[in-house]
């Protein structure tokens, strides 16, 4: 009994670890692929050299990030079988087809056109090359569509029945795919990917503006990124609020954990700003709270009653402290993004967008904010779904593979060592690429033979890394 429980915890740790590493790269490449398509379109439309320089500059970064996303993604797709075989058997008939459609409609599209996008500009000409870029960008979005549909079904299952073998079976595929939380999750995640990318692009632009405010490439990318932050950060906050209301309707227990509501409130619930949720005593220690505000936000009425975790059997409680804190981190990052967007708008209106060192330093500091928010958001929603894999229907302990703890422990250690070694190197290479500003005549990763040639102009070959 105890040993089985141990293997489940280890399998969860492994899933959390590999998933956290993986999600960073899609979050970045979804946004970057769209950005590259926009840059190439602008280049084709205007013929301005700065756009193709920026395109080639970010293309090299995209190639490195995409490779890391691909390899960590293959790990995810097989982990369902290795560590969660009971889950695969039971939910395979519903989740499997959604993931198979992701492969058929998205992965092949991305992979098939990626080679032309990276190496084919001289071979196919600008128009076909733009088509390839567009296909890669569309592929990343289609991929987000299917994977969020599958994840949302696990959160708010719909359109299914259960057969005599205990397997979930689709009764209505449209209801499975467009399950109740799916639209909210998809919008929230795609916007998050765009914001994450904008913050990185903006930070790189700001970094080079801090050194030389006259560089054409950094001015263009900084301005574009700040527009994105200004316009999308407020939209994201609205989308997040709507997603929260949807969660309250379909996963009320998750909201109780996010809000730290151990106790029910008959006449209006407070908003707990900070505190230390204590799972064993069922209280939030050192809570700092605003009376009635919780009900106002979630129910749009100060006196609306709110049920707490005391109405839920303890064995169905998610880990409250993690959910509570990851949610606050995500919201905090979102508010900082809003501040950056508004600040940049103010500077833009005053004509100081390229001159305000304070703004540039703020933008550089915000480089990792999108990644932090995405990670925190995923932790909130995934940990908040516990102790179930399929919300309310299939428990996490009933989902794991019949494996001995040592097997899962050794693979977890192997993943940790390999991921840190490989992805640390990748991040160093990304930072090196970003440390040099885009040059006039910037080359891509590039034509068929050119990796040999580009080796001459990469920072590595210039001595930065060698």
């Amino acid at each position, binding site marked *: 009994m105890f040993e089985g429980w141990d293997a489940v915890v280890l399998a969860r740790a492994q899933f959390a670890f590999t998933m956290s590493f993986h999600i960073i790269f899609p979050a970045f490449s979804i946004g970057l692929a769209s950005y590259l398509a926009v840059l190439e379109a602008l280049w084709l439309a205007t013929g301005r050299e700065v756009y193709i320089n920026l395109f080639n500059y970010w293309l090299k970064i995209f190639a*490195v990030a995409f*490779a*890391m996303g*691909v*390899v960590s993604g*293959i*790990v995810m*797709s097989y982990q*369902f*079988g290795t560590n969660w*075989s*009971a889950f*695969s*058997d*039971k939910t*395979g*008939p519903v*989740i*499997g*087809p959604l*993931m*198979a*459609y992701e*492969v*058929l409609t998205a*992965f*092949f599209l991305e*992979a*098939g*056109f*990626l*080679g*032309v996008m*990276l*190496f*084919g500009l001289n*071979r*196919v000409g600008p128009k076909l090359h733009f088509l390839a870029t567009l296909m890669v960008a569309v592929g990343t979005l289609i991929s987000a569509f299917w994977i969020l549909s599958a994840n949302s079904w696990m959160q708010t299952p719909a359109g299914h029945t259960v057969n005599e073998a205990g397997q979930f*079976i*689709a009764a209505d*595929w449209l209801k499975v795919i467009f399950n109740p939380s799916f639209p909210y999750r998809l919008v929230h995640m795609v916007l998050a990917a765009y914001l994450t990318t904008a913050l990185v692009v903006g930070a790189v632009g700001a970094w080079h503006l801090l050194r030389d405010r006259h560089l054409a490439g950094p001015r263009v990318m900084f301005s574009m990124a700040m527009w994105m932050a200004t316009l999308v950060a407020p939209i994201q906050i609205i989308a997040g609020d709507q997603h929260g209301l949807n969660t309250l309707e379909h996963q009320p227990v998750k909201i109780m954990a996010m809000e730290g509501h151990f106790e029910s409130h008959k006449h209006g619930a407070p908003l707990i700003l900070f505190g230390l949720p204590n799972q064993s005593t069922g209280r939030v220690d050192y809570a700092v709270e605003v009376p009635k505000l919780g009900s106002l936000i979630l129910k749009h009425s100060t006196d609306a009653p709110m049920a707490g975790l005391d109405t839920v059997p303890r064995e169905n409680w998610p880990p409250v402290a993690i959910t509570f804190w990851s949610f606050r981190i995500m919201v905090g990052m979102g508010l900082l993004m809003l501040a950056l967007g508004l600040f940049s708008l103010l500077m833009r209106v005053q004509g100081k967008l390229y001159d305000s060192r304070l703004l540039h330093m703020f933008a550089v500091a915000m480089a990792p904010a999108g990644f932090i928010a995405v990670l925190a958001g995923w932790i909130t929603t995934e940990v908040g779904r516990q102790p179930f894999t399929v919300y309310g229907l299939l428990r996490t302990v009933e989902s794991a*593979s019949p494996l*001995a703890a040592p097997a899962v422990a050794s693979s977890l250690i*192997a*993943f940790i060592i*390999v991921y840190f070694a*490989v992805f640390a190197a*990748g991040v160093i*290479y990304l930072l*090196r690429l970003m440390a040099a500003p885009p040059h006039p005549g910037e080359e891509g*990763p590039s034509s068929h*033979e050119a*990796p*040999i040639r580009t*080796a001459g102009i*990469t920072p*590595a*070959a210039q001595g930065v*890394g*060698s």
Partner: protein
Amino acid sequence: MNIAVDLATVWAFIIAFAVFVYVVMDGFDLGLGILFPLFPDKRDRDVIMNSVAPVWDGNETWLVLGGGGLMAAFPLAYAVLMPALYTPMIAMLLGLVFRGVAFEFRWRTTRARNRWDIAFFGGSLLATLAQGIALGAILQGVQVEGRHYAGGWWDWLTPFSMLTGVSLVIGYSLLGATWLVMKTEGELRDRAYHLSWVLLLAMLGAIAAVSIATPFLHIQYTERWFAWPNVLMTAQVPISVAVVTALLLRSLANKYDYQPFFLTLALFTLSYAGLGISMYPYIVPQSITIWQAAAPENSQLFMLVGVAGLIPLILGYTAWAYWVFRGKVKPESGYH
């Protein structure tokens, strides 16, 4: 009832097709990784990598389709096989991580390039060995109780699975070597050409060894291959292998560019057909048939729509990508 039976067979062929496309396509680029130490010159290595850099990602996607398709169409088989193959699967994934990032990383550093070359080689070798071992482990059968794998986490390790592991390393290397014959020129091509000879002989030995060992694994394999009148049909496989081998030897003797690679593909096809003959209709040999493992009809139908419409499209744009990067990779044009 009838339609369910048909769907399971259809899906068995689709999964088999996806895995086969994976084996031959990622097979040759994994083979290039395995051959890397035999080409120590940096310029040769650049050419070798450039010969697949634009297409390897698409090649590897077939592995995701094979795994994802198995989970969707035969969830029970996926749930039994993956824990049974736990260690080889994890090893394969880690190998593919190293191999995949090496494609990008080695251009981004000069000091650590050698390290990523080793990662490319080691990752390719590990992934290939793991795939071959997994194949052997599936063929020898796994312990099943109810809907779960019931064996230990080292059951896969046997002399037979080691044999299939080494055989696949040889096979992928031959694919890689004949790919290089097709895609390169000059001294590099000559070395790949000589390697092809050696590897072809090793490959024939491997095919013979696996073919002889397999019937001893289980009486059902023996009956499938040798029982009268089955043998009239199954004998076609070794006969075809002999014919293809003769053609392959001739094409190598004539120093053809394209034929050795495509004939090696034919050799793979025949070996793969042989595996199919041994296994059918089991998806977990001796334990679970494709009908027992099949997902409910509506799942298989729902996906069939996508596969029927999309696979031709995917093959179309994949072929286009290969066409865009057709011809010999010329190292000199990179130096200006």
